[in-house]
Every structure is written in C-alpha cells, then in structure tokens.
C-alpha cells in the first residue's frame, strides 16, 4: 500500500502522464529554460520572503542600530542578559584554557583541531552533544575545485555569482582557495568520499555550479564529515576538552572590551561556570529555530543564534543578517517529515519540479533563492500548487525520473537516507514523487569577520554559519560544509596565534562591563521589557499545556 491516499493517487497520475516525454527530453539534454539575470531580480523581489517588508523592522541598539532585520532577529538583538542584576563571582575561573571554542559542530570542531595542531589546549563548550549541529544535516555535498577542468578561480566566480555579487570578496577568495586543502585534509582523516575505483573523486553539479565539483559521501556527506572530525577530536583528549550540555550564555571582557573568557551554563545542574581564555572562537551556527516569518526549518534543535546575541553585546557588527536562505525543497508530506530537507542532489540527479498539473515551471537547478521564489510564485500567486490535507502548499519533486535516467536502483544507492525516511511512511520515492515547499534552511549573514575569522573585537573570532559575508545574500549548495571547515580551521589557527600573544602582558581580567554598557543602551532606547537572551533551546510547548502552568517553571 502506498503512503499516498486515493486523493493523491489521482493527482500523481498527472505526473506519471507527463513523465515519459520529460525523461526523453532530459536524455536529449533539453531542460526548462533558466531565468535571465533580469528575470531573477524581478522574481526575487516579488516572491522571496527576504524582500517582503512585512515582519521586518530596524533594531534600536548595538553596532547595527537602524538596520532592518526580521522581527524575530531584532527582538533577540534587543534582549537582555541572563546575568543582569544577578550576583556573579568572576574571581576564581573554573576553567583556564588557551583557546575557548563555543559550539561543537563542524566549524567549532575544525577550530579545535587546528588550535590543537598548534600545541595549545582547547576547551569546547556546546549546548547539546558534540556534533549536534547543522553540519550533520548537510546531505548533498561539499564543493572543492580539484578536477583538471576546474579551478578555485571558477569556483570563486560561481560563489559570487550565486551570491548576486554581494559576497565579501576576501572571504569568498579564501574559501575557494582553501577548498582543495580541506578535501585533502578530510581524505587524510579517513573520510569515506564517493570515489571511482582508481581513487578519483566522484563529483557532480549543484545549483549554480559551472563545473562538477560536488564531493559526496552517499547522501550523508555532512554526517560523515562530522563523525570523522569529531572522532579525530576525541583522539585528542589531552588537548581538547569538550563540555557537552554546557552552552556559553555570555562573553567576558577586560576593561578595554577585549574578550577574555565566557560564562557557561550546565543545562542539567543549572550551575554557571567561569572560563578564562587566551582567545575565544564563536562557532554556534545559525538561527533556523527562530522560525523566521513562520517557516518550518531543516535546522537542528539548537540553532537559536546564541553566538549572535553574545557577540553583538560585545560589540561585533553584523553583515547581511537580514538575508535568509529558504531551501527550495523541504518535505511537506507526510506530516512527520515536515521541514525535512530533500537534498539538492535529487535535482542534481535529474528530478524535476512539477505543479499540480504535472507541468514543469522552472529550471530545476536555479540558485536556491531563485528556485524558492519560483515555487512560492507557483503556489501562492498562480494557485497551481498542491495542498496537503493539513493545509500545507507545495509542488511535486519527481524523483522516479532518477532511476529512469540513471538505471534501476540509483535512488536507493545515491539517496539511501531519503529513501528510508519516506519508506517508513510507505512512500517509495524511486516510484512515487515527493511533495515539497521552501523551508528555512540557512542564515546567510551573521557576524562580520575577515578572512582569518577575526571579528574586530580583540580576542574574539568566529567561523561557520554564525558568521556572514562568505556567501553574500545567497549560498550555493555544497559551500556550507566547505565554509565551516575552511573558516573553522582559519579561525582556530588565528585563535592559537592570538592566544600565544596574549600570554605576553594582555589584561586578562574578567568582567561583564560590556553587558552593563549594553543594558544602559537598552534603557536609553526605551526598551523597558526586553526578552532574556540567548534563547538556548526553542520552546514547543503547546497552548493546552501552557494554560495549565499556573506558576513559572
């Protein structure tokens, strides 16, 4: 029996009807025409959530005062510290470390490994378990120009074109330049890349790439990267100490405002710990769990922008944080899979997007923001989307084409995780299409950094999704796994260098002066009842439970 009921079966017939002709056309190398640069601009402006003014407003305090962000972000930037009006004792640090890394996903772990390579001791603070991050969820691959017909030069062009030329060029340059080094580093650490028998990397195209440079490990590329780098870190218990379920909730600074440590909170005992560090790397990931503009998200449970909040209070400015990436293909059916990411690899392998009539309406490998705009237009504007029984709009992603194009069994082999995730609900995606709609996927902007991960605030570095500028206002598939590792390593190396220097006469006192200053600014701006930040974990308590909680927890 199929997981699609009879009302779906009727509509699937329309998809099946147009399929043979579409497969034939694909074999001939024909595809639905891509939008021109001009058309892209118009469609983005009309249909992409980033460009809608609803639900956005200027933030009233801090380094980016006056800049417009989504409401969910602005409120958080104007939040107050957990440690306001609390008696804290910063005199006897519980930990002293050369480098403190906040966040233990791909970027944090890469930073820890790099600093450890330099012979330093690293303390890693993380909210959930080591490796719980968006890194594990990246499926499709990691880019790196290592084939003969490609080079970092073309990779760079693709990155800045995909980002609509809004990228920080030094960052895009650093990322594409280091990409082969990172792929090589992973290969040496025993990552199971998809390879040809002679060792050549099996690479393919992604949205917006001019050359095939997408490396993969099945459809678990991020999970494989994460488990390998984490495993390597676990081999270094002498130099890397990971504190799980102990997120940083505030930075500590000296009297001049240089970062000298942080306060961590043990989520289980609710104790606070004081850390003194030669340098600090913020690698806390993105903001998906803030559910910007009401979108479901592909992000992991801890993606609540904690690092943004802490660093903003310490004076780090933000770049492009008003720009959010909606992944064009998030599952909307069955209900259990809502928000689940359907990797771009599905389209890379030839699956097409179809409206409720089984017709194509866009080039399947547009840059992600353009593709998302196309789907939102088809559903909300033209009314040619599908509506699920739970009221979610969406379009078809015709995955059965993949086996027809590349041979029986390709879906199972190339997309094992997706195959299992739908098979659980009696949907065989090698035979039946999926229903998808854009889902909140990636924080394009973030903390402003230079190509070494420096934030402009002394002693504080940053890497990964929490930082911005690398991808400009739109990121291509396969560049986030690359970004976290390139800048994780770069930030780790720089942090090591700064930490060594800090031993020579840096004022290492630990204060919360920057918090006091920030709160004065809040008062001055008339924000009298700010929320408390960082959020740490999202709250999914339903109303029927809330209404019975007569007292606060």
């Amino acid at each position, binding site marked *: 029996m199929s997981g699609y009921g009879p009302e779906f079966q009727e509509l699937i017939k329309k998809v099946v009807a147009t399929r043979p002709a579409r497969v034939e056309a694909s074999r001939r*190398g024909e595809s639905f025409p891509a939008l021109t640069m001009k058309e892209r601009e118009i469609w983005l402006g009309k249909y992409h959530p980033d460009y809608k003014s609803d639900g956005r407003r200027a933030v009233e305090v801090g380094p980016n005062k006056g800049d417009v962000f989504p*409401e969910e972000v602005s*409120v958080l930037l104007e939040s107050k510290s957990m440690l306001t009006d609390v008696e804290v004792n910063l005199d006897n640090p519980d930990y002293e470390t050369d480098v403190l890394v906040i966040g233990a996903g791909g970027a944090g772990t890469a930073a820890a490994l790099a600093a450890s390579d330099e012979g330093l001791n690293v303390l890693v603070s993380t909210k959930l378990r080591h490796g719980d991050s968006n890194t594990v969820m990246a499926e499709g691959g990691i880019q790196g120009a290592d084939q003969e017909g490609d080079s970092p030069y073309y990779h760079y062009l693709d990155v800045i074109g995909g980002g609509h030329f809004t990228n920080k060029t030094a960052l895009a340059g650093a990322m594409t330049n280091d990409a082969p080094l990172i792929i090589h580093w992973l290969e040496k650490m025993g990552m199971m890349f998809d390879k040809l028998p002679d060792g050549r990397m099996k690479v393919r*195209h992604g949205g917006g790439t001019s050359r095939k440079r997408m490396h993969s490990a099945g459809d678990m590329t991020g999970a494989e990267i994460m*488990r390998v780098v984490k495993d390597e870190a676990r081999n270094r218990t002498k130099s890397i100490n990971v504190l799980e379920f102990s997120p940083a909730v505030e930075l500590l600074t000296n009297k001049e405002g240089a970062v000298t440590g942080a306060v961590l909170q043990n989520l289980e005992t609710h104790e606070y710990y004081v850390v003194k560090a030669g340098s600090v790397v913020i690698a806390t990931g993105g903001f998906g769990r803030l559910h910007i*503009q009401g979108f479901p998200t592909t992000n992991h449970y801890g993606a609540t922008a904690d690092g943004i909040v802490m660093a903003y209070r310490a004076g780090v400015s933000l770049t492009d944080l008003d720009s959010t990436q909606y992944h064009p293909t998030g599952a909307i059916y069955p209900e259990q899979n809502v928000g689940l990411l359907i990797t771009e690899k599905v389209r890379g392998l030839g699956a097409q997007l179809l409206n409720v009539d089984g017709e194509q309406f866009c080039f399947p490998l547009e840059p992600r923001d353009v593709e998302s705009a196309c789907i939102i237009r088809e559903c909300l504007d033209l009314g040619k989307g599908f509506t699920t029984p*739970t009221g979610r709009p969406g379009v078809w992603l015709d995955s059965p084409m993949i086996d027809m194009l590349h041979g029986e069994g390709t879906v199972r082999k190339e997309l094992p995780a997706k195959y299992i995730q739908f098979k659980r609900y009696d949907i065989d995606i090698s035979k039946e299409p999926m229903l998808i709609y854009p889902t909140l996927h990636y924080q394009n902007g973030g903390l402003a950094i230079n190509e070494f991960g420096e934030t402009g605030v002394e002693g504080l570095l940053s890497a990964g999704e929490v930082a911005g500028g690398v991808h400009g206002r739109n990121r291509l598939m396969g560049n986030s796994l690359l970004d976290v590792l390139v800048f994780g390593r770069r930030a780790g190396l720089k942090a090591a260098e700064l930490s060594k220097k800090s031993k020579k006469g840096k004022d290492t006192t630990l204060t919360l002066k920057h918090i006091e200053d920030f709160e004065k600014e809040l008062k001055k701006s008339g924000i009298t009842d700010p929320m408390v930040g960082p959020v740490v974990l999202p709250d999914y308590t339903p109303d029927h439970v809330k209404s019975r909680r007569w007292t606060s927890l």
Partner: protein
Amino acid sequence: MAGKKKEIKPLATGDKTIPPKGAKMIPIYIMGKEYLVPETLTIMKAVEYSGFKYVRGCGCRGGICGACATFYRYLGDYKLHTGLACQTVVGPDMVLAQLPFFPSNRPDYNLEGLESSPHEELRRLYPEVFKCVGCGTCTRTCPMDIDVMDYIALMKRGDLKGAAHKSFDCVLCGLCASRCPAQISQFTAAMYVRRLHARHEVPKAAHLESRVEDVKNGKYERMHKELAKMKQDDIKKLYVEREREPDMSELGKWMPEDKEHL
C-alpha cells in the same frame, strides 16, 4: 517579549504540528505515565505535545544525528521495539523510554603510522569484536536497518571494506551497544573501521594531490587578486559567460576552452 512585537503574516504554515482534520487522540505512556496525543505524530512531537521540553534526547530532528534513540513496547505485548523518536510514529498504548546516553567503549588511536595491518590493528584495539556470539540482537535493534551483526562478522574476517560500507548509514545512536550480550560497542568499532579503510585501503585522489600543490604555491591567490582588482561589471560578464561543464561529461576528461585559469 519586547512590547514592539507585531503580528507577522506568515508565508508558510510553520513548524507546529498540524494534526490532520479528525485526528484521533490516542493514549501513550511516557516512562510509564499516560498522556493523550493526536495520532500521526512522531514520538518526539508527541512528547513535546505532552508538555516535555527536551534537553537530552533531541538533536537534528531529521533522523541523522542519533540523539533520540528510543525503546518501546505496546501494552500487553512482550516484544521490545526500538526507533528514533524523531522518525517513529506513535501508536496507541505505546510505552516508551528514550535513551539519553549510553556508555560505550572507544579507545583512542592514531590513524597514521599503523604498526601492523589494519585488521591486526582492529584486533588490538577492539578485541571484544572477536567475541561476538552471533545472536543478532544488534541487527534487530538498529533503527537504521543496518545488519550490524553482519558487519561485525565482516570485521572478524578482515573484510574492512565490507564492514565500512555495511555500517555506513550508522548514526551512532548506541542502541546496538545497549543490547549486546558480548558487551561490544559496535558503532565505535565501525567508526574506527570506516576511517581505517578510507585512509589505508582506498586509493588517494591523484588529481587532488596535484591541485593541493598548486594551492600551496599560491597559484590561485594570484588569480583571486587579479579578480579582486576588476570592475564589478567585468566580473559579472565573466560569470555570465563562463563555460558550463556538460551534465553527462566523463570525470577527468572534459576540459574547458579557457585553460588559462586552471
């Protein structure tokens, strides 16, 4: 919340669970205590619907991180089941407990400079793997449908390649180890074997090695500097006019017209 928060008109229906119309309420037992939840929810969403807030036992919420390993039975049935809480749908009379953590054996090792063959290294580091009694409980326990016992058998035989590929879908949830009568931590041994195999048994990518040399010699930093000096309109032109490698090209064979920037 700040007083300024205004109503946002959403473009989507959000992350909240929307039970389909007419969804039935069913009883589930969270650590033995009864709660009524709408059918069709995953265990994770049902637990949240009941009013719990996760600290442990919740990670990616997408079936890939292994944080939410769960044991369950149905009232009146002796059979013990396992699953990932974020992927398993609740049923009536499900009695469930999540595994927040399980101790595992994971010896430190150095991937470089092996003293003996990979198979011997495995025997030295994980002698318990070779004491597998072949009961198959691990395989029945795995929420990713991995034939755990089979990859352990391949390890014993020295087929590290087979074991690496067979164990590839592992999410390190630890359920296998929690039930093993031979006290093996299968998933940590498999992690080791995958790295050993990929590092020491798979040929290196020769094209990558030579590209790494070029990068280290600063070849592309020079090109990037060149680009950084160009006007944006000229860069845009380069972008629009760049050649696209055909989809069906053979790896390592296709070359662009412009070879100056390779």
